[in-house]
């Protein structure tokens, strides 16, 4: 079993096309699912723990737990939509196949995050600061996402229709993944914070934060009270 797991992990990294073909043929998907969950826990968990090294302490454990959880929650919410979109746009892939494909893609992304972990740890250890840490983690997520796209593209087809399905899936995945991660934050942890919460208060949403950051980036800072006044008219 161990040899089979390592062989599947190797295949996930080296040949996304072979993984997609295995899912298309509906071979026994159990080793693939087990290997993918293992890769997800190990890769995303390690990267989460590394992100928390700047804060240290209990945040290490929290982030190691929450990052794989955010990925899994996002997959659970998005996979039914992916399957429906693929079916709607003429790809004959059922829910089981889409679960295998999405899980494999997430596993590949997690393994890429694992590859980034030592370099990120080194940079964080040099004390680059909270905001640069956030930026660095976003870049790593971007690279991991691109590597996951290869698995999805191999499974959905590399023609115009496959690209259309990928774009529609991305339109569902991006807001859902961002909001799931927002609900489970903090992952890095502000150094100035006295205590480390497992989850922060709701404090708006990812979309609200992006909206406010768009104003902040052009030098227009809006306080929470002002935003409340604008939205409610009070």
């Amino acid at each position, binding site marked *: 079993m161990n040899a089979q797991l390592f062989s599947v992990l190797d295949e996930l990294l080296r040949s996304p096309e072979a993984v997609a073909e295995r899912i298309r043929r509906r071979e026994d998907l159990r080793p693939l699912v087990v290997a993918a969950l293992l890769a997800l826990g190990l890769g995303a968990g390690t990267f989460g723990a590394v992100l928390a090294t700047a804060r240290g302490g209990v945040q290490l454990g929290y982030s190691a737990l929450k990052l794989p959880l955010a990925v899994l929650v996002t997959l659970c919410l998005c996979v*039914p939509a992916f399957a429906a979109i693929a079916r*709607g746009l003429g790809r004959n892939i059922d829910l089981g196949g889409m679960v295998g494909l999405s899980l494999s893609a997430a596993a590949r992304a997690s393994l890429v995050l694992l590859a980034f972990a030592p370099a990120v740890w080194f940079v964080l250890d040099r004390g680059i600061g909270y905001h640069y840490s956030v930026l660095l983690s976003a870049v790593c997520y971007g690279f991991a996402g691109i590597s996951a796209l290869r698995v999805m593209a191999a499974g959905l087809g590399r023609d115009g229709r496959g690209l259309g399905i990928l774009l*529609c899936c991305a339109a569902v995945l991006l*807001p859902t993944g961002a*909001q799931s991660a927002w609900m489970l934050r903090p992952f890095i942890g502000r150094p100035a914070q006295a205590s480390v919460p497992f989850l922060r208060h*709701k404090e*708006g949403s990812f*979309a609200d934060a992006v909206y406010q950051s768009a104003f902040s980036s052009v030098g227009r800072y809006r306080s929470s009270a002002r935003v409340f006044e604008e*939205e409610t008219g009070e």
Partner: protein
Amino acid sequence: MSYETQALDAGGLDLGAAEDMRSSALAPAEPLGREFARLASGLGLASVFGLALGARSGGVALLQHALGAPLGLMVVAAVAAPSLFVRLALINTPLRPAQMIGAVAQGTFTAGLVLAGLAPAVAMLVVTIESAAAAAWMSGLGLWLAGGIGLFNLLAALHKHLAGHELRARSREFIAIAVFSVLACALAARAWYAWLPLLRGAS
């Protein structure tokens, strides 16, 4: 009266069109009962998306949104599609009513399926997002995505039945279908905006 007899009767008016009609009329069509069942399934699946939207406020809003979400699809199926069929018949396209119903059923079912697939993600988004405007925007994105895929399926089914005519006839069909697409989007958006309070920024 069988499809073949109907097509031959139409031949008295226009022989060329009748030839086309005979070939498309002979294409196997699904039984009408099955198409209506598919249409109803699509509307039922769309109401699952409505339930997800209603989860933001709960209570009566659940029912209100569950009834409102299929309405956009119903307006397209009941108002816009018959209008397209009349226009296509006026320009003498070889499209049978049963084929039109089949195309509409396929489009509605696919849109409903995508809406139902989106429901878990949208429920999480509208419940956890604080800003009413952002929640409305996310719901609208889901409706447009599913509506677009449904429209794509409807047009693909129509294209299958209308393929292979002379260029002049095809250009007239194209204009009729393009007008229908714009009208279908506008009507569905209007119905959803009127019947889904969440889209109007209600929390």
